[in-house]
């Protein structure tokens, strides 16, 4: 079978996504964001600005918050990748996700996956964050609906309820 032009030069890449090993064919410089969304169908990770300003594409790479639009997929080989789909993998929402629902922390939803992952990363370092710490932890994530206050409240509430679970 001959390769289509788009396929030429692609290599087989093994990634660890949400605890599972997955194989994709991709160019080394493809953005991790595109591989997650287009090759793996994990469309919970959103593209906002595409230049690391908005945080909509945030994921965890080895437990560290990163913007997946700025990661060449080759740099993600061997890393433990967690997307929003991996947080409630068994279909049960986490405390943090429930707090977003209850506090009105999500409206249109585009920023929400990135907000949740940024908040999750924050709670992993500071289980009971102050408002100032919440503001800083989420400062790389833009929301054009909520005005942020409900989001900050949701993260603080998750902290009070024991956060990471």
């Amino acid at each position, binding site marked *: 079978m001959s390769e289509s032009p788009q396929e030429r030069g692609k290599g087989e890449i093994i990634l660890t996504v949400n605890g599972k090993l997955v194989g994709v064919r991709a160019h080394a*410089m493809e953005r991790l964001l595109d591989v997650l969304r287009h090759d793996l169908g994990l469309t919970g990770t959103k593209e906002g600005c595409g230049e690391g300003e908005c945080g909509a594409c945030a994921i965890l790479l080895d437990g560290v918050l990163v*913007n997946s639009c*700025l990661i*060449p997929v080759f740099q993600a080989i061997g890393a433990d990748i967690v997307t929003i789909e991996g947080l409630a993998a068994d279909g049960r929402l986490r405390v943090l996700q429930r707090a977003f629902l209850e506090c009105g922390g999500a409206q249109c939803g585009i920023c929400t996956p990135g907000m949740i992952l940024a908040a999750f990363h924050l709670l992993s370092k500071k289980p009971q964050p102050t408002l100032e710490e919440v503001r800083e932890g*989420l400062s*790389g994530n833009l929301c054009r609906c909520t005005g942020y206050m409900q989001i900050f409240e949701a993260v603080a509430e998750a902290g009070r309820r024991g956060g990471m679970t």
Partner: protein
Amino acid sequence: MRADPSEYEFATPGTMRGVLSLLAQDPGEWLPIAGGTDLMVQFSAGILRARKLVSIWNLPELRRIEKFPEEIQIGAGCTYTDLRAHEAVNREFTLLTSAASWTGGIANQNRGTIGGNVVNASPAGDSLPALLVYGAELLLVSVRGERRVPYRTFHIHYRKTQLEPDELIRAICLPRRFSEYYAQARKVGARNAQAIAKLCLAALGRLEDGVVADIRLAMGSVAPVPLRLTETEQIVKGRRIEPTLVRLARMAVASEIRPIDDMRSTARYRAAVAANLVARFLEQLSAGGNKA
């Protein structure tokens, strides 16, 4: 126009030796990429000129912070998060950790590196004024060996540096002699996180018997390169901080900066605020802050 990933080569040698020999093989062909917070933006915009990238992300030799009696050597691949988390860097080089705290947001701080900020050579680079006032030196490494250059001579022109095509920055060396100085870092921007500075100041000062024994001032976004304000320093050094001196300092600042109008601000605004920031620093230095 979005870039086409199929046009790019990408190497991950995984070792310093492997990276350096690749850079030496075809000088100028391969561009090192660390956390990608600058280069991937250029890539996505279709304006990244290099077609061959070599990953230096997480090379152990570049991710160390080493303490020596006279200096701290920060591996060029250390992220802003690494800097903020390091006890000695935090205690002795507050101007640098302040700048790190307002570079991007947390996600970008987890990927952006200090070496990347230096090589990217933007006049607006948040950490660069701090490196100027701390008298940082750079260790540049290639297969030919290692050389040490003062950071203040490294940026030649707008976005041009002394780095040879086969070289990497290995480490940034900071002399450990400023921990007793009064230190002030200021960023003026649309907001602290994410926004690129309209201008920023890093300042160190020390009084002896009411007289300015030493002062070191540097600003970002007021000239084609990050600028040490040597003329202003000369005017202030050895004198008492009095209203007349503050007025002279304001004039000196205005005469030595070269601000421009751009999308973030105007030359006039920058000149006014630059003078205000220096005046404020002098007043606070004289008001007793020998230590912060």
